[in-house]
């Protein structure tokens, strides 16, 4: 009977042997390190994946609350019954809003209001908040029939109190609440007229809806994610003129920017765990192969072919992958539940369940990492000579370039896949290669320089430091892996903090929260005086000229000729043109030159230029009060929409617009305590309209806060993955260190000397890794700030020093249990 499990061709008979080997290796500790690294990696990545998937969905859902629904159709006519039928067929929740301007009468006064008639189901997402005794109270649904809710501006304007009557059209209502926030209120901030919410069952009684009335209808839809998506597709195919889908990402640039940044932060955090996993597995794989050289040599003497060896280990790896993926995904799944549970209060909505994709991605990443980093060392096993059973020097050399190339290709592939964004992928790849390259270069230089440097007199310290250059390959591998691990952790801590700080600063606490529009030129001085008297800084006024874009390069702009819906809307509506300062501080020139007072020309915001395919040199014609004005585009600008200051898509030069009829606009920060100033201003200057944008500022800050918390949670997992790297790095030298300590003690070294030797080596490797990691993290952070997040780079210059100390400390601490164990074991036992 052939007991070796090898057939006549030196091939393995079946999977059974691979399984038995795997079990034996696991119990004997042979594969435990790698399995552990893989399980931690998969658990970390999948929990990050599951959780970010849920958080992402929740963020989108919260953002959807700006729409009060998952999907909104905006129409200038009544919503066709076919839309409602289709939504019903898909079991979606349906709601409706009709808005129109009307005069509201209360007491002896009248005020233009925007009437918002809402269905009983309104809002489908989020909730209305009413002001009661200075507090915001969340209420379910909208006003009851016969009741109306108005915002504070209407109460001020009509000098009414809750409980008073108000008449709209032919119908009287009781004012039952002061609206503090509507879930979809932020979407309508330019609807600066005071708002009145009524129940849509009261709408016919007002008799205000007549043919030709300026009514805007909104169909609100919400429901299961897939149903909403398919409904969106159906609607896109069936929309008619005057109907469009409202999308939160398109509606408000500030919200769009915040959402995109939140998503990028989360993706970047998830990518970090990929880096960490790779470093841990690469170290573990190296040790695994080292420990198998002897047994493979024995198998070769028993007649196993090189192919047989590869087969055996591939099968073992496949089984290992199965076990690790199952265990890793299970742990990841449980961990994300615990996370979601801990964070349930953070979201207004319940976190939606994670989709299957993160599980597949986790398994895919696990498999790719395992095989990407284990195949080159495996090829080394293939080349083990049977002679090794007699001569230990018959050890095949590893193919370092192949291992590096395959490892790098694997990571590159994973990064491109995970990043889902060319810029992010480019940054991650550049960061990875830069870190690995510079860490390897510095490590080799150190190994070369160390024996030539004056070393400490103490034998322990000297021995340890020399060990770094003696264990060349291993030292380089450890420094590279630890640098990568520390860099990832630093990116997630300090650099992330810098980025979030810069982000937070981009919407400063004193960002303007009020806009005043409709200021007449002659009122500017008086308004500025009113500000000064109220001890507020005098505002800067920007002129605003109403105009319509009629042609580009002589080509008439007909909305129906444009394919892009966004471009069509831009051409349909009136533009507000401005002139003044040649280039404002929160604007950046991206093409062309600054406008001159005398040379006619336009400066266009780059986003709108892209939508309308406008380039520097194009001639734009605007119709201003019936007269066409043509001038070339002299520059394209990047506008910092985060600044909440007055900004314009198109600015003309002074000579072109100075004599046109203009009103003025300004923005300013009104502290809470001075909120009455806005009302007093509108009382003194009745034509002025003051728009309160503090609600939208709150929304933006809310999204930022949630993204921050989500990233912090993701960070915990990356720390665990980082610990895995540290553990793997310690284990990489475990056997060697154990034997070394035993020999040193046999030769009479004191425990202090043994500790010093280990400390010197670990402190140097850890400290250098920390230093390199800090440099890499700062570099990546600076590029990320500028390229990805469009934020100024703010550097924590203290990071290299702290990184070096923390890296040294972490590496030494990680080895402490092993060292104590070795020192507590009698040398003879360790040597055996």
């Amino acid at each position: 009977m052939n007991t070796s499990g090898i057939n006549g061709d030196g091939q393995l008979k079946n999977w059974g042997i691979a399984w038995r080997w795997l079990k034996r290796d696991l119990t004997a500790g042979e594969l435990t390190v790698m399995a552990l690294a893989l399980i931690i990696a998969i658990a970390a990545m999948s929990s990050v994946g599951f959780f970010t998937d849920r958080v992402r969905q929740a963020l989108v859902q919260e953002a959807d609350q700006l729409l009060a629904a998952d999907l909104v159709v905006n129409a200038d006519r009544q919503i066709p019954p076919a839309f409602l039928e289709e939504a019903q067929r898909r079991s979606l929740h349906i709601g409706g809003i009709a808005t129109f301007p009307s005069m509201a009468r209360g007491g002896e006064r009248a005020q233009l209001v925007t009437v918002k008639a809402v269905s009983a189901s309104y809002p489908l997402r989020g909730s209305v908040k009413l002001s009661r005794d200075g507090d915001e109270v969340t209420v379910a649904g909208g006003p009851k029939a016969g009741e109306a809710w108005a915002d504070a501006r209407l109460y001020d304007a009509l000098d009414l109190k809750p409980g008073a009557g108000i008449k709209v059209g032919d119908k009287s209502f009781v004012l039952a609440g002061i609206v503090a926030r509507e879930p979809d209120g932020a979407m309508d901030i330019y609807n600066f007229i005071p708002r009145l919410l009524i129940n849509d069952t009261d709408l016919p009684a007002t008799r205000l809806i007549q043919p030709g009335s300026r009514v805007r209808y909104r169909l609100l839809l919400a429901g299961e994610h897939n149903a909403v998506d398919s409904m969106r597709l159906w609607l896109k195919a069936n929309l008619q003129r005057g109907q469009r889908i409202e999308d939160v990402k398109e509606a408000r640039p500030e919200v769009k920017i915040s959402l995109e940044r939140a998503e990028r932060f989360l993706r970047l955090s998830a990518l970090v765990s990929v880096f960490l996993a790779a470093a841990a597995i690469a170290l573990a794989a190296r040790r695994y192969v080292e420990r198998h050289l002897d047994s493979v040599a024995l198998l070769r003497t028993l007649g196993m072919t090189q192919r047989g060896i590869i087969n055996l280990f591939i099968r073992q790896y496949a089984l290992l992958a199965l076990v690790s993926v199952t265990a890793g995904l299970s742990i990841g799944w449980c961990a994300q539940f615990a996370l979601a549970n801990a964070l349930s209060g953070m979201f207004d909505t319940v976190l939606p369940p994670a989709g299957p994709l993160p599980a597949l991605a986790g398994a895919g990443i696990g498999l790719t990492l395992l095989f990407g980093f284990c195949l080159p060392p495996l090829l080394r096993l293939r080349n083990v000579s049977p002679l090794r059973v007699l001569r230990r020097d018959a050890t095949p050399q590893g193919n370092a370039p192949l291992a590096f190339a395959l490892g790098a290709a694997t990571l590159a592939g994973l990064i491109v896949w995970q990043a889902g964004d060319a810029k992010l992928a480019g940054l991650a790849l550049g960061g990875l290669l830069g870190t690995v390259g510079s860490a390897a270069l510095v490590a080799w230089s150190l190994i070369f320089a160390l024996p030539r440097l004056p070393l400490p007199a103490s034998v322990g310290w000297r021995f340890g430091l020399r060990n770094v250059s003696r264990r060349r390959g291993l030292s380089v591998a450890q420094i590279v892996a630890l640098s990568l691990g520390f860099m990832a952790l630093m990116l997630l801590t300090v650099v992330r903090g810098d980025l979030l700080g810069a982000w937070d600063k981009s919407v400063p606490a004193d960002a303007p929260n009020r806009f005043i529009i409709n200021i007449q030129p002659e009122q500017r001085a008086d308004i500025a005086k009113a500000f000064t008297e109220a001890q507020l800084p005098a505002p800067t006024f920007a002129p605003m000229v109403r105009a319509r874009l009629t042609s580009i390069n002589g080509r008439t702009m007909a909305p129906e000729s444009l394919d892009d819906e966004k471009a069509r809307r831009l051409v349909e509506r009136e533009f507000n043109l401005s002139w003044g300062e040649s280039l404002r501080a929160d604007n950046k020139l991206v093409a062309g030159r600054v406008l001159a007072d005398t040379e006619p020309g336009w400066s266009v915001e780059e986003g709108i230029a892209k939508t309308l395919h406008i380039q520097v040199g194009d001639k734009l014609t605007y119709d201003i009060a019936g007269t066409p004005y043509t001038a070339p585009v002299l520059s394209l600008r990047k506008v910092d929409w985060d600044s909440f200051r007055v900004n314009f898509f198109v600015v003309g030069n002074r000579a072109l617009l100075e004599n046109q009829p203009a009103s003025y606009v300004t923005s300013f920060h009104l502290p809470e305590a001075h909120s009455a100033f806005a009302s007093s201003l509108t009382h003194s200057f009745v034509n002025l309209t003051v728009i309160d944008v503090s609600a939208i500022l709150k929304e933006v800050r809310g999204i930022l806060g949630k993204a921050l918390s989500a990233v912090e949670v993701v960070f915990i997992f990356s720390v665990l993955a980082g610990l895995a790297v540290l553990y793997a790095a310690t284990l990489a030298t475990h056997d060697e260190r154990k034997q070394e300590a035993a020999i040193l003690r046999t030769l009479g070294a004191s425990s202090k000397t043994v500790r010093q030797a280990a400390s010197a080596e670990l402190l140097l490797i850890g400290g250098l890794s920390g230093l390199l990691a800090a440099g890499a993290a700062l570099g990546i952070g600076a590029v990320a700030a500028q390229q990805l997040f469009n934020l100024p780079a703010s550097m924590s210059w203290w990071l290299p020093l702290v990184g070096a100390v923390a890296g040294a400390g972490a590496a030494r601490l990680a080895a402490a249990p092993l060292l104590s164990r070795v020192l507590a074991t009698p040398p003879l036992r360790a040597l055996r």
Partner: protein
Amino acid sequence: MEIVTPQAAAILQADSLTKQVAFDHETLTILDDVSFKLPVASTLAIVGASGSGKSTLLGLLAGLDTPTRGCVTLAGQRLDGLDEDGLARLRAENVGFVFQSFQLLGALTALDNVALPLELIGRSDARRVAESLLARVGLGGRLLHRPRELSGGEQQRVALARAFATRPKLLFADEPTGNLDTQTGVRVVDLLFELNAEAATTLVLVTHDERLAARCACKLRLAAGRVLERAGL
């Protein structure tokens, strides 16, 4: 620390040494009540079949392991009164080792391996002494080779050079030829005895090779952990 009286002045003394190991619910006695005194500059061979307790005895005598009962006195010092660092200091000053599996540090060159025990006791001439010792064992041309680049015989010669580097009072050798072919083994043993004679070191040798044992002045034969035969002691 207890200093033994001059009339009992042996370089090595074992008193009722017993070593027991617990396996599951069973206690296994590996060494049972072994006692002897070894005079300065003599040579002792500990012989016996595999599993008779030879290497365990050597480990206890050298202070590399602790007995369950009994006491070892080495160079006038009782080992049971010393902590791990005290034992290490005693070894550094008095003891050299040669192992069956050489126990060289793989990351160190031959020169570094031999210089190591000298550096541990703070000798500033460590490398010079190591160089001359390596030349003495015939490896003057392999100073910068690492253990994996040397044959078994060469590695054992490096180990011999390391063992004699500090001119120890006592040298413990555990099956020094166990991993070598006969011819190489003979050469290594010849070298061991030559160096031993030059340095007037007391040699304690564990072996199952009767011819090698015959070259020693004293002999202790173990069987199942007990002393079966003693000669010259």
